[in-house]
């Protein structure tokens, strides 16, 4: 046996051929995985039958019977389990999207502030990052919720946050825009305006590269994006109204307070979750931004300075674009974290996909199906994120000079 490998001839045993070996081990591995998966599925089905637990996805069409505190689509107790799940999914998107936007803004500000030459500003930023990053998120969510409930005026009074809206324990009430017949023209105008602004920016940068002449493309774009839809809106006869929240202050006690369904409301469960997610995630984004900026060679700044660029322009045109290459990949994974962390919402009764899905699971008893659905949702989030990251990395390596 041992002599085979010592044979001087060029003939190598198949067993020691690296190509064959890797083929064989891959086939075995895939076979094992497939077998394991098969065993898992058949066993689960068998066990569900043995335990006499109903299975299959038919239940999604049956009547749910419970209500949810927040739904972005039409939903009440007469809707189906499937729709209840959708409501939860949309609630997850809702808090995740707003959370990502706010956490990014705050994170960038704090990240830059930590590098500030101003001692007080950089200290405050450091303390904020160090403290909030180290308190468990679940605790922060619960604390924010308790604080909101404690500080907010009762249901039959309200306070005001300048310019944003009125609030009490039922939430933050703001005016709501209601589109009417014919608003679709304005909708199209918005799309066209964005496309136009993008084209102007392309044209401006091409021209600058060719002739060196500058064009205020940002301001021009802003003017187009705001101006055009407004113009169209008024030209089509203002097809939309703004509905203000209504506060009832007399009559029977139960009727007093903000009139349900009039105006727009951010419920306290949503606000507490949002605050906690934003403040927590922003600390990580701040660190990423700080590291990204520090990663840009100081020589770049000096060279830009030597060319006569002012500080603001150096940051905007030289440092940030290079830092972005370092910042974006970990930033996307923070976005994913924020989305996944939003599932802690259950603790304060915000019906996200975990919460609403959990109620469906409990009322219908179809645990395996619901868990599969929730897993697919989070897996999709993760895959989309990593596809984006791969795309971004590929793009960045192309423009590398």
């Amino acid at each position, binding site marked *: 046996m041992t002599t085979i490998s010592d044979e001087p001839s060029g003939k190598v045993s198949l067993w020691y051929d690296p190509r064959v070996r890797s083929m064989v081990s891959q086939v*075995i591995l895939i076979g094992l995985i497939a077998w394991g998966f098969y065993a898992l599925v058949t066993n689960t089905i068998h066990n569900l039958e043995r335990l006499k637990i109903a299975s299959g996805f038919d239940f999604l069409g049956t009547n749910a019977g419970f209500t949810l505190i927040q739904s972005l689509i039409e939903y009440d107790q007469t809707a189906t389990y499937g729709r209840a799940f959708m409501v939860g999914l949309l609630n997850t998107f809702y808090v995740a999207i707003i959370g990502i936007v706010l956490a990014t803004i705050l994170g960038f500000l704090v990240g830059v502030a930590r590098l500030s030459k101003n001692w007080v500003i950089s200290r405050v930023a450091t303390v904020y990052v160090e403290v909030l990053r180290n308190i468990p998120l679940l605790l922060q969510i619960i604390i924010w919720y308790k604080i909101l409930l404690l500080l907010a005026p009762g249901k039959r009074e309200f306070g005001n946050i300048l310019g944003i809206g009125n609030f009490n324990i039922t939430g933050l009430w703001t005016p709501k825009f209601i589109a009417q017949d014919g608003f679709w023209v304005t909708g199209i105008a918005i799309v066209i305006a964005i496309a136009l602004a993008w084209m102007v920016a392309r044209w401006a940068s091409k021209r600058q590269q060719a002739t060196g002449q500058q064009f205020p493309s940002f301001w021009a774009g802003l003017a187009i994006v705001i101006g055009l839809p407004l113009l169209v809106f008024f030209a089509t006869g203002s097809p939309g109204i703004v509905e203000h929240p209504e506060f009832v202050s007399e009559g029977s006690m139960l009727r007093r307070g903000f009139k349900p369904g009039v105006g727009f409301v951010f419920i306290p469960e949503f606000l507490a979750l949002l605050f906690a997610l934003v403040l927590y995630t922003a600390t990580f984004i701040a660190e990423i931004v700080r590291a990204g900026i520090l990663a840009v060679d100081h020589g770049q700044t000096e060279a830009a300075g030597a060319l006569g660029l002012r500080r603001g322009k150096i940051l905007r045109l030289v440092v940030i674009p290079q830092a972005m290459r370092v910042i974006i990949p970990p930033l996307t994974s923070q976005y994913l974290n924020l989305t996944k962390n939003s599932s802690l919402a259950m603790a304060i*009764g915000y019906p996200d996909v975990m919460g609403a899905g959990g109620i469906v699971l*409990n009322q219908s*008893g179809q645990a395996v199906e619901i868990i599969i659905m929730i897993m697919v949702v989070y897996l999709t989030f993760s895959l989309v994120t990593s596809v984006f990251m791969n795309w971004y990395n590929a793009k960045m390596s192309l423009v590398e000079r």
Partner: protein
Amino acid sequence: MKKTLLALGLGTAMSVAAAAAATAGTLADVKAKGHVQCGVSQGLPGFSNADAKGNWAGLDVDICRGMAAAIFGDATKVKYTPLSSKERFTALQSGEIDVLSRNTTWTATRDTALGLNFAGVNYYDGQGFMVRKSLGVTSALQLGGAAVCTNTGTTTELNVADYFRANNMKFEVVAFEKSDEVVGAYDKGRCDVYTTDASGLYAQRLKLTNAKDHIVLPEIISKEPLGPVVRQGDDQWFNLVRWTLNAMINAEEMGITSANVESMLTSKNPAVLRLVGKEGSFGENLGVGNDWAYNIIKQVGNYGESFERNVGPKTPLGIARGVNALWSKGGIMYAPPIR
């Protein structure tokens, strides 16, 4: 490398196969491990609640203690798993607990689609509403427009939606998984109304900052027969739970208490002798000793004793027997005979 992978794969497959193999039966498993694993609430005074030392007590806890007394002759051989209303069924289905005794309503869905069996009813309940006195509300029919706090994963959240819809009233439900969160949110004024089983209202009211500022409205909007639950497909275990409860009810009917059960061993009444195990082999038929009911009564007491000790008028909950009185005393508590 390949060897480890292979071993790993085989190991996984084998553990999956092992999990699939049916167990010998819950009673045998329980005897082997030496205790009953009992699923209870996360703290509902009077029904299942732990004191500062971690000792559990309550009407629901007494079912588990009774079972331990029947099986081991020792009511203390119980381990408790506190569960939220949302977690409870999965815990039972997966075998994490042997029996669920946690103010759980017997419904058709739970009895069929969830693969569970209700072994009886140890408390006939119904859903009620609690409001602040300052609202000036005297009937649930005046609750239109109210925000209602309750638990998720309960019959409660379904009933409340039904009730408001049937009576054409607007409402909003704020639902939480844990009762402490529900009570906390109601206490801070997030909701106008707190709704749950009437027994739960009495119990949770003790947790409010100012219990006197709240009233329970007269309407009872549902039937909530609460009882112990087991998995389907294990009749022996099901029987044991069912007859533990029946023994406690029968004992009350015959006037056998923890104090006098000793003297009942020499009773002249054959029905009594059968219950305390002096005649017949009822314990053997259940898979335990013939002194099973004697031990239950001696160590836990009869149903009436358990009721008075945990939720009755002399306890902080102060609940009257009402429908939970024996059938012979105007209630509907009724157990089949032991013969």
